């Protein structure tokens, strides 16, 4: 465990001595802020429109969760498509091209510790990225007023949404980690990771054009199917199992690749 934390800590320290960490978090929060302001504006326009129409029953249905938080969470994980390859490309590729891989492989640590250490490092980045958008519901909570009792924000769906977005981030990070272990070039790792993640985002559209069993298979395979349920506030055990097993499988593959360097 100590070795895993040592490696995770090193990964984090590199994210923050280089510009990667700041640039990633900065750009992400900036874009999320932009989305927040846009959705908030739209919300305001809708309220005014309904008021003008004299239709109070429509106004009743309007709420922060559906109108602002859900779209924000969805945009948030779309952004992972661009940020995750950027974070994961260097994990193994840089070690190999800089020859520091030789240090890790000759240190008294085993391959699993190396893989888990790197994964935990990037997992922490994903955790922060998933929690950063929490500011926006908080703002709504503080400044918004509800028509009835209590908070203007329904918190349970926010938590389930954030959890699923985080799990999606972990899965993407594991994909990036695996791809990075296959190559010496950071650019190849980034482009390949981007391509695979893009495929994951395209799967639901492919599923939409299929029929019958194939449709449900492709639909199940797409991580978006699972995360979108969480964002809507539905937390299913099957979705948790899906992400958990996918991450475990990818880490296992990465471990095999790293281990293979020992007998090549």
């Amino acid at each position, binding site marked *: 465990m*100590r*070795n895993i934390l*040592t*490696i995770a*800590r*090193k990964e984090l*320290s*590199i994210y923050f*001595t*280089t510009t990667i960490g700041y640039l990633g978090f900065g750009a992400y929060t900036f874009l999320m802020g932009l989305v927040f302001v846009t959705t908030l504006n739209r919300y305001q326009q809708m309220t005014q429109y309904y008021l003008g129409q004299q239709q109070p029953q429509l106004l009743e249905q309007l709420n922060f969760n559906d109108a602002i938080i859900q779209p924000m969470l969805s945009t948030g994980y779309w952004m992972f498509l661009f940020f995750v390859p950027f974070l994961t490309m260097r994990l193994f590729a840089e070690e190999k091209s*800089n*020859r*520091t*891989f*030789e*240090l*890790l*492989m*000759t*240190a*008294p*640590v*085993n391959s699993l510790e190396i893989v888990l250490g790197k994964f935990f490092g990037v997992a922490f980045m994903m955790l922060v990225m998933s929690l950063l958008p929490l500011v926006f519901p908080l703002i709504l909570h503080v400044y918004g007023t509800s028509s009835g009792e209590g908070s203007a924000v329904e918190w349970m769906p926010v938590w389930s949404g954030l959890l699923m977005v985080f799990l999606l981030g972990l899965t993407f990070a594991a994909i990036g980690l695996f791809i990075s272990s296959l190559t010496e070039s950071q650019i190849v790792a980034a482009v390949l990771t981007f391509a695979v993640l893009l495929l994951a985002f395209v799967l639901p559209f492919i599923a939409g054009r299929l029929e019958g069993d194939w449709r449900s298979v492709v639909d199940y395979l797409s991580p978006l199917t699972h995360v979108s349920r969480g964002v809507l506030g539905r937390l299913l055990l099957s979705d948790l199992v899906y992400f958990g097993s996918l991450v475990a499988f990818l880490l296992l593959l990465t471990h095999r690749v790293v281990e293979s*360097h*020992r*007998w*090549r």
Partner: protein
Amino acid sequence: MIEVRGLTKRYRDHVAVQGLSFQVEPGEVVGFLGPNGAGKSTTMRILSGYMPATEGQVKIAGVDVFEDPLAVKRHIGYLPEIPPVYLDMTVRGYLLFVARLKGVPGRELKAEVERVAAKAGVDHILPRLIRNISKGYRQRVGIAQALLRNPDVLILDEPTVGLDPIQIDQVRKLIMELGESKKHTIILSTHILSEVKATCERIIMIAKGHIVADAKLADLEREHDLPLEQIFTKLAVS
């Protein structure tokens, strides 16, 4: 301390080293000499446990490298051909990281890092980013890293490559000092003859993957009745 028997490494149809056998006693300083491409780095990498051999056996401190690699790695300090430094870490951050990896206990971390930094002559650049220090200093940071936790065996792959004459001299002095302490068994590879002359008692010369000579420096010169330079040329070509 180091026991190598019938070591062979093949990459597909290319044979890098063939049937190497030698022994190094505790406290010895051995120069691993050979022209470029003779198989020096390959041998060093196998000894350090970085890559496996195709055939043969390597034992370090009585433990087989392939059977219990983790135990062996605790005994070894290894400086690869290219110093394995992270450009985006400070010298101190890097040495602390390697010290933790090597299992230096938390309380002793700081003192241990300062000890090796002083030994390798990098104690005055500890806060600097490795990206911003010269090649010679990077090499020395690599040496400092190898010294962490006082390993029984030091494997140094071309430790003076890329250094200026003053730095070469300093690194050689450091190696001699380490050798004289008799606490470490040192095996260093090089293709620079004066280096072996300056630092090593014994020479293992390899050419095209085979051992062509294994003797004390003085004995070798006496036997061939030639200076080392000419013995090297003669054996490397033959």
